[in-house]
């Protein structure tokens, strides 16, 4: 009875928040409720088919509808999708294999620059013949190639260090990410490979192969308006593929080997698991995910420069995995969505609100202490600029109070 009540309540909440977000597309609070309703949908006790249908409908129909009213929501959806894919990639490395990778963004950068260099006039600088930029149709080939490229760089980096103690890996990956950033920052001479700190633009977007069909059906949409929807569905498809692959890997022989290594390396090798080879595989798999997401990111952004690939990006993705729960696929998705929303909507919103308070000239009056004019609030105090503090707190508090994360993986038994 109580289960049925809970389910009913949840559905009312989901329907209500959807309606709110739909009727008031400018309301940030409404959109937040809509986002949390997806989580409610995941947790509610209901038949799987119903949940899948509702979730699919929300993602496939409702978000684009909201996006047509307020394009910023599509942007948030795309960002969340990109981070979900990244977090799932890192989840393989940190969550399944138990290898701390602090330089995950390096592989992301490699993928992004891979498409950026060849999908823009940049490659003409070192390949004679004016072949570049490549036509948009090459995008999907590069997406596939970037998977191989990411796996290859992962192997090259992993080979020397995966034999060593685990915590050396953290520092080496961190160093590697800094090396990659230093390289893309400085390889504008002697040969201009990356255009240095100025970055690369314009990067070719993926092909609009479906445009003839749209025209056939008589739909006339300007390209600039079509792209956000296109990217949204592309990212959604990509995330779907990544979730599927991760889910399949998790329960496969390989996934079980990874978890065995994570729990006890010695016991795993005694069971005949090739420890180093399995670790390399996990490391390379995570790297190839990140690299492919990088290609998507470059095509979406049109402009990239080394600033997009700092250490904080790696930490942000790590915080997503930790928050959701190491080794848990739904956890990684929740963590990615949560941290992205926190960064894009909550912290920025708080900053704007504080700024408005500052300008309004109101005063904060506390009993006994006196009144404090808010216009004197230091300008330096802007929540959006303190993401390190937020991420740091997430990491420490989660490790001390709930190391298994918000949505921990289903375990057969406790270790």
């Amino acid at each position, binding site marked *: 009875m109580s289960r049925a009540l809970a389910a009913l309540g949840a559905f009312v909440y989901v329907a209500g928040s959807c309606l709110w977000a739909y009727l008031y597309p400018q309301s940030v609070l409404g959109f937040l409720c809509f986002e949390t309703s997806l989580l409610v949908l995941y947790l509610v006790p209901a038949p799987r088919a119903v949940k899948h249908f509702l979730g699919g409908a929300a993602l496939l129909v409702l978000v684009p509808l909201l996006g047509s009213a307020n394009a910023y929501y599509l942007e948030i959806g795309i960002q969340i999708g990109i981070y979900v894919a990244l977090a799932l990639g890192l989840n393989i490395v940190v969550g399944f294999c138990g290898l701390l990778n602090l330089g995950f963004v390096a592989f992301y950068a490699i993928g992004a620059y891979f498409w950026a260099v060849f999908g823009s006039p940049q490659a003409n600088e070192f390949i004679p013949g004016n072949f570049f930029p490549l036509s948009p149709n090459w995008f999907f080939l590069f997406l596939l190639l970037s998977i191989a490229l990411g796996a290859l760089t992962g192997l090259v980096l992993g080979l020397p260090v995966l034999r060593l*103690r685990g*915590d050396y890996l953290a520092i080496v990956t961190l160093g590697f990410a800094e090396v990659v950033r230093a390289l893309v920052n400085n390889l504008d001479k002697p040969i201009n490979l990356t255009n240095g700190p100025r970055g690369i633009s314009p990067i070719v977007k993926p092909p609009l192969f479906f445009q003839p069909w749209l025209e056939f059906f008589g739909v006339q949409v300007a390209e600039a308006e079509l792209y956000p929807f296109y990217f949204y569905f592309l990212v959604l498809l990509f995330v779907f593929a990544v979730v599927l692959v991760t889910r399949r890997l998790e329960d496969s022989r390989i996934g079980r080997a990874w978890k065995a290594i994570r729990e006890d390396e010695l016991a795993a090798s005694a069971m005949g698991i090739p420890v180093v080879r399995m670790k390399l595989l996990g490391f390379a798999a995570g790297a190839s995910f990140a690299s492919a997401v990088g290609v998507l990111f470059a095509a979406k952004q049109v402009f990239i420069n080394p600033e997009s690939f700092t250490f904080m990006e790696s930490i942000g993705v790590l915080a997503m995995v930790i928050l959701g729960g190491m080794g848990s696929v739904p956890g990684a998705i929740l963590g990615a969505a949560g941290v992205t929303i926190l960064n894009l909507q909550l912290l920025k919103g708080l900053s704007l609100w504080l700024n408005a308070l500052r300008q309004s000239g109101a005063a904060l009056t506390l009993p006994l202490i006196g009144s404090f004019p808010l216009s004197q609030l230091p300008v330096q105090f802007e929540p959006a600029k303190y993401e390190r503090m937020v991420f740091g707190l997430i990491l420490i508090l989660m490790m001390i109070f709930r190391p298994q994360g918000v949505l921990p993986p289903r375990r057969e038994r406790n270790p």
Partner: protein
Amino acid sequence: MEIALEIFPQVLVDGIVLGFMYALIALGYTMVYGVLEFINFAHSEIFVLGAFVGVEILLLLQDAGSLALLHPAFVLFLVIGASMAISGLAAMALERVAYRPLHGAPRLVALISAVGASLFLQDGLRLFESLWRNTFYLNYPSLEFLDRTVALTANLVVPVKSILVIVTALLMLVGLNLFVNRTRVGTAIRAVAQDPDTASLMGIAVNRVIALTFFVGGAMGGLAGVLFGLHYSLVNPYSGFVPGIKAFTAAVLGGIGNIPGAMLGGMVLGLLEAFAASYLSLLTDGAFGAEYKDVFAFLVLILILIFRPKGLLGEKVREAQA
């Protein structure tokens, strides 16, 4: 070739100064690794904290107008002593708050907590300075006697501040060696590093020794921070990140857990970096310049891990099982 020979002594001095800084920071990493087998990722923030304590004291003295009146030696003693004490205490507090609750948890958990502590401290320091001074890029007030130079030969002019760094660091390193090898407490630290369980059976208060290790390592980091500030002037909350990684590289280079190794590793890395920064562009005709000096340190780290993972002097930690 002319230029290469001419700048050689100057580069050597720069390298030695850098080497002593790395050595001092590396001690914090290596000592903590020795007793706890974990990378104290937030050590670079302890280093920065030392630099900030120094600059705050100097700025306060300057604002009070007493900086010029006091004897320079007294000012130096005050600044160095205060930053060592505060950094050491901060390192102890960090251990108490962020690491001790995780005692016995998997190593990954403690490491992630350390990364979190590092980020939190960076922005915490930024927040504090932003509210207090409305900026977080601080400049050390110039001290006249530190800017003097001593001409040793015709083309080697050494500023007094470089001599200060070298002398202070040398004294502290010798003192630390005596402390660890010749005193009862130092023996306790080494005993805990070898085997904490047996050490506790021998009546050593293991937790207290761990706290003490954090204090000593933190004080050395704070000293490095204040020397860094006095030498290079400009500090901000994020300036510890790169020196921190390099100092860790130095600790691995010398053999982690090994105190003389950290000193040697720091010196080797400092010299390598100084020479790479000045000679790389000379050797490659300007194609690659000083901007690659950071890359250089990381390449060194990766190469050591491939060819000699135990470091130059061998590591001194228990057989670790992750």
